[in-house]
Every structure is written in structure tokens, then in C-alpha cells.
């Protein structure tokens, strides 16, 4: 398996800077998601790794070796395009076998590997169909099979699930995860859906405007975003500006909150406190003494089936709380929010 490393990679199209500077290290066998808003440079990054685009500056290394002089054909990477790019004039089997047949492999070997691969993606029944006669999910499986059959050392997927409906998306997500574990291929996939990134990836690289904003495990990206931008992008609702009055105390409009100390933050600094909506404990009785709790009143309620989201008014501020829908608290009820200090996360401004 292959380890991929981008070091100080920059890409300009004429005068336009698509990638400012990116350092990224993908371990062998790892599944990494590139997450970011539209136009931030995700596809460009993939294309540079594949060799379709040449970095303006910086280096891309596979297993420590610089690949900038290696042509696309010899990089031995696989890439599933956003719109699959299945060859419309070839049947499923000829599409899948394409990579082997251009390598001039013997017929018998191609046949054997083709059978095996069609079995893996469960497309045996469709082998003589043309792409126009397939559904979206089937087309995607053909695209994946066509790529995997060449045994690439790095697999890249550009928004692999964007064109599928919700039900199929979940199914394909599990399918991709299972395939990736079975083959142990270093995989990089692009998405602008944070849920998808968190569910699939070992690590998530959040990219904004051609810069790597944070590169971490899904849990840390979600719970401990490194910047306000990342926090907002990951859907954080409760962010309150404040001032650090002690290493573990922050003065905010919600009141004085005890928080997790963050290395390198001086007392007196202006920071932001982030409270994850599902980490707050909401009670209708005052919590026992000694807990950190603030009082509020329910101002709104949104029911999502499995979960309920409440807007709780606490003084001049509104706090969003998400709970399991096991119980329903009425609008107007008086509640207490129990805030555990380990769920108060500080963000530098």
C-alpha cells in the first residue's frame, strides 16, 4: 500500500490561485475525506495527486518518492469521477476490463479478474448492458469496479455519492467502506457533506479557499474545531464570544462558564466558547448543587423524528439543544442546561 504526501503544494490557473498551499499526509491504507465548500480546490487537489494537473509549486510524494515526473498512466492511481465518465460505447464488461486490456494482459487473465470484480460489485447480471441502461447506483459500481480492477495503489473518488438519492447513498457508503477495508487501499475522497465525511473517513481534511483549515479525526473536527470557520462548517450552533478570565474560566453573555483549558491561550484573551447542542443536558428540575447549570425558557421546538431541537432562551442569548425524541418539552417551559466543562470548547478568534 502507498503513503501519499503533499508538501507545500500550490496551484495557480494563470493568475488565479486555486490552491494556496497545502500540506497533507495520508497514511498507507487510510481513508481520508477532503471536505470543503464548492470551489475550495478539492477536485484540483485530487487531480494533482492523479497527475492530471501539475502543481505550480511544492511536491507530491508516494511512499516518499517525488512523483512530479511520473506520467498519469504510470502513477498507478485510480480515480472515480464525479459523473463517473463511463465509456458510453462499451458494455459494462468492456468498461470494467478497459484498464487491463490497454495493459495488454492475456485474455484469460482479464476474463478471470473481470469475473472476480463483477462478483465483488454484484454486477454479473448486467455485464452486457451499456451504461445508458443502468441506474445511478449501478453506474457508480461500474466506475468503482473499473478502477479497482487495475489494483491502484491510491484510490480517489470525487463526490462519489453526490448523484445518488438518500437511500442509495447510505447503501453505497457502507459498500465503499467495506471495499476499502477489504482491499486496504489508501483512499482519498471528496465531499462537501460533513455527515458523509464523518461517517466514512478515518481523517477529514477541511479545506477553505485553497488552504487546509484542519486535518484531524472526524470526532476532533466535530468536537474540537480549530477555527470558527471549521466550527460553522461542521454545523455548530452555539458559539459565544467571551474573554478568558482564568485558564479554565470564560466570561460570556451566557455567564461565567467553566471550560476545558486550551494550550497556548493566555488569560485575558478574547476567545469563543462552543457548546455542542447534543452535549448539553437539559432538565426541567434544577440540577443538584455543584453542577454548572444555566436557567432558561424554551422558545421554539423543531421535531425531526428521532431527535428534537429546542431553542432555549437564556437571558439575552439563545442556545440550541438537540435531544433524543424520547420526551417532548413544551414551548414556554422553564429548563436548566447542565453544561459539563469538558463540553465547552474554546476557539481562537
Amino acid at each position, binding site marked *: 500500500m502507498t503513503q501519499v504526501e503533499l508538501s507545500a503544494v500550490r496551484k495557480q490557473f494563470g493568475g488565479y490561485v486555486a490552491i494556496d498551499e497545502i500540506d497533507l499526509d495520508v497514511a498507507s491504507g487510510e481513508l481520508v475525506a477532503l471536505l470543503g465548500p464548492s470551489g475550495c480546490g478539492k477536485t484540483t487537489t485530487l487531480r494533482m495527486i492523479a497527475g492530471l494537473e501539475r502543481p505550480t509549486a511544492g511536491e507530491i510524494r508516494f511512499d516518499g518518492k517525488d512523483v512530479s515526473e511520473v506520467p498519469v498512466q504510470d502513477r498507478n492511481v485510480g480515480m472515480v469521477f464525479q459523473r463517473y*465518465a463511463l465509456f*458510453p460505447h462499451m458494455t459494462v464488461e468492456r468498461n470494467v476490463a478497459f484498464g487491463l486490456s490497454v495493459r495488454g494482459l492475456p485474455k484469460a487473465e482479464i476474463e478471470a479478474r473481470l469475473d472476480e470484480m463483477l462478483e465483488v460489485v454484484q454486477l454479473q447480471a448486467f455485464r452486457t448492458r451499456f451504461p445508458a441502461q443502468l441506474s445511478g447506483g449501478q453506474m457508480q459500481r461500474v466506475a468503482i469496479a473499473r*478502477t479497482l480492477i487495475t489494483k491502484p495503489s491510491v484510490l480517489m473518488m470525487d463526490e462519489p455519492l453526490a448523484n445518488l438519492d438518500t437511500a442509495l447513498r447510505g447503501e453505497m457508503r457502507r459498500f465503499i467502506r467495506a471495499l476499502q477495508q477489504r482491499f486496504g487501499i489508501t483512499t482519498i475522497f471528496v465531499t462537501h457533506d460533513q455527515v458523509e465525511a464523518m461517517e466514512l473517513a478515518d481523517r477529514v481534511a477541511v479545506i477553505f479557499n485553497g488552504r487546509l483549515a484542519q486535518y484531524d479525526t472526524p470526532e476532533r473536527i466535530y468536537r474540537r474545531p480549530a477555527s470558527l470557520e471549521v466550527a460553522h462548517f461542521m454545523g455548530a450552533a452555539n458559539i459565544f464570544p467571551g474573554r478568558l478570565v482564568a485558564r479554565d474560566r470564560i466570561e460570556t453573555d451566557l455567564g461565567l462558564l467553566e471550560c476545558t483549558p486550551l494550550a497556548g491561550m493566555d488569560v485575558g484573551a478574547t476567545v469563543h466558547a462552543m457548546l455542542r447542542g447534543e452535549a448539553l443536558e437539559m432538565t426541567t428540575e434544577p440540577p443538584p448543587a455543584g453542577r454548572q447549570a444555566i436557567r432558561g425558557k424554551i422558545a421554539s421546538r423543531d421535531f425531526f423524528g428521532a431527535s428534537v431541537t429546542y431553542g432555549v432562551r437564556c437571558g439575552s442569548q439563545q442556545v440550541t439543544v438537540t435531544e433524543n425524541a424520547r420526551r417532548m418539552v413544551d414551548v414556554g417551559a422553564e429548563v436548566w442546561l447542565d453544561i459539563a466543562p469538558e463540553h465547552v470548547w474554546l476557539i481562537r478568534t
Partner: protein
Amino acid sequence: MARREDIALTSRLSPFQRIYLLLIAGFIVGPFLPLIIQSLAFRWAWPDLMPGTWWMQQRGKSAIPLAWDYVLSPYSHIWEAAINTVAIGTTVTAICLVICLPAARVLARERFRGKGAFEFFLSLPLIVPEAAIGMALLMIFIRLGLAGSFFGIVIAHLIPTIPYMVRMLTAVYQGLGKDFEEQAMILGARPMQILFRVTLPMLLPGVVAGALFTFLVSTNIFLLTFFLGQGKIITLPTLLFAKISGGTLDASAAGITLVVTLPGIVLLLITERFIKEEAFGKGFGN
């Protein structure tokens, strides 16, 4: 796939629609009717509706071969002209494709300085009279010793055909995204493999249309062939013009005219089938 169309065509047309279509067909095919009759006539004088004497009636009585006997005899040079025409047309089409494919690719995909000017110059041969091109080429070719040669004519035919071909292929290239070729590249295909396994098959409908058109244009060019052939190379159009330039519209002239239209019709029928079954039958393009 082909069935779909049959179904659409069996749905009934109103009498008006039917007459309308028949009129159009009649307008296009109509002029051929007198031509066919003329080619079979010995004497057909105004204002008779049908020839007074048919050619078959005079067969054997005349010293020289008449009508179709003449057309198909060695005297008419029609075989030589037909072979020349098809050979020139095929060569021109092949060379034209080889020249125009890369050009169309660049025009469709890249933006560069001077692109507008290039496109303008490309259409120049369509605007400038053929005679001007012919004269200019003749002067050059005489020096180069290309006048009156097969390749001289091929080169001359390329000038009016390249603009059409580039335009047609640019349009098809624009419809073909880069994705497919890039995907093929990632899968390990070399440039030639990409061209023959991915690009050309996907461009096929456009390539066939462009090739058909080029071939037809080439087989119909008179002036350039006449100038540069120097009488040494005859093609169907030059043969026809030589025959009718005297103003006589006899049976053999009509016969030759009919033969001249043949390559185009045959080609059209072949490509029609080919485009439908090969390319569109496979589920793209429609």
C-alpha cells in the same frame, strides 16, 4: 433501438401533412425524372411529353454506341473518371480527417491568443471564389511539378474541405468532455489507445458525418479539378462538364449526369444505416 422509430412513423399523418411531404419530396426528386427519361431517349423534342424515338429502337442502326451503350463503353471514359473521383474523394477525406482532428480538438478545448483570427482565416476558402484559389494554386503547382497530378488535385480539394471538416469536428469535440480521455489515461491507456478506443468511437457520428460531407464536396468539385488536372486527370464532374459544355443535352449526357450522382447516393445510404445502427443503437446520442 431501430424499432422505436418505426413505431413513431406508423402513427397516422393527416391528409394535409401527407400532401405537404409528398410535394417537398416531389420538388427534390422531380427534376430527376426528365433526366432519366432523357437518358433513355433517342429523340425527344419540345413539346412532346414522351420521347418520339427511344434509344433501344435505334440500337444497332447507328455506327457509334448510343445512350447507355455509350456511357458504359470505354469511349466515354466514365469508368476512369469514376475511379479517379472515388480515389481522390477517399484520399482527400482520409487526409482531411487526420489534419482536422487535432485542430478541432485544440479549437474546442483551448483558449489562446489569435483564436478568432485563426477561425476567420479558416473560413476564407469558403468566401474567396474557387477560381481565385485555382489560379493561385496552379501557378504554384506548375513550378512544383504538381499540376496535372493526382496529389496536386488532392491538395487542391483539401482547401475547401478543411474548413467544413474543422467546424463539424469542433462541434462534436465540444460535446465530448475531457473526462473520458482523462479517465482512460488514469486507467493506463496510452495516447494512441485513447484515440482509437475512446475518442474516435465516441466522436463517430460526427466523424462519419464530416467524412461523408468531405467526400461529397470533393466528388463535386469541378473548377479546381479542371484547373489543376490539366486535362490529364478526369473526374466525373470534369467529364460531365466537358460533355455538356457544348450545350448538347443528349441521352449520353443525361446518362453521365445520372452516374455522377451515384457515389453520393450510395454513400448516403451506407452511412445512414451505419450511423443509426453502430453509434446511436448503442444508446448514446439519443
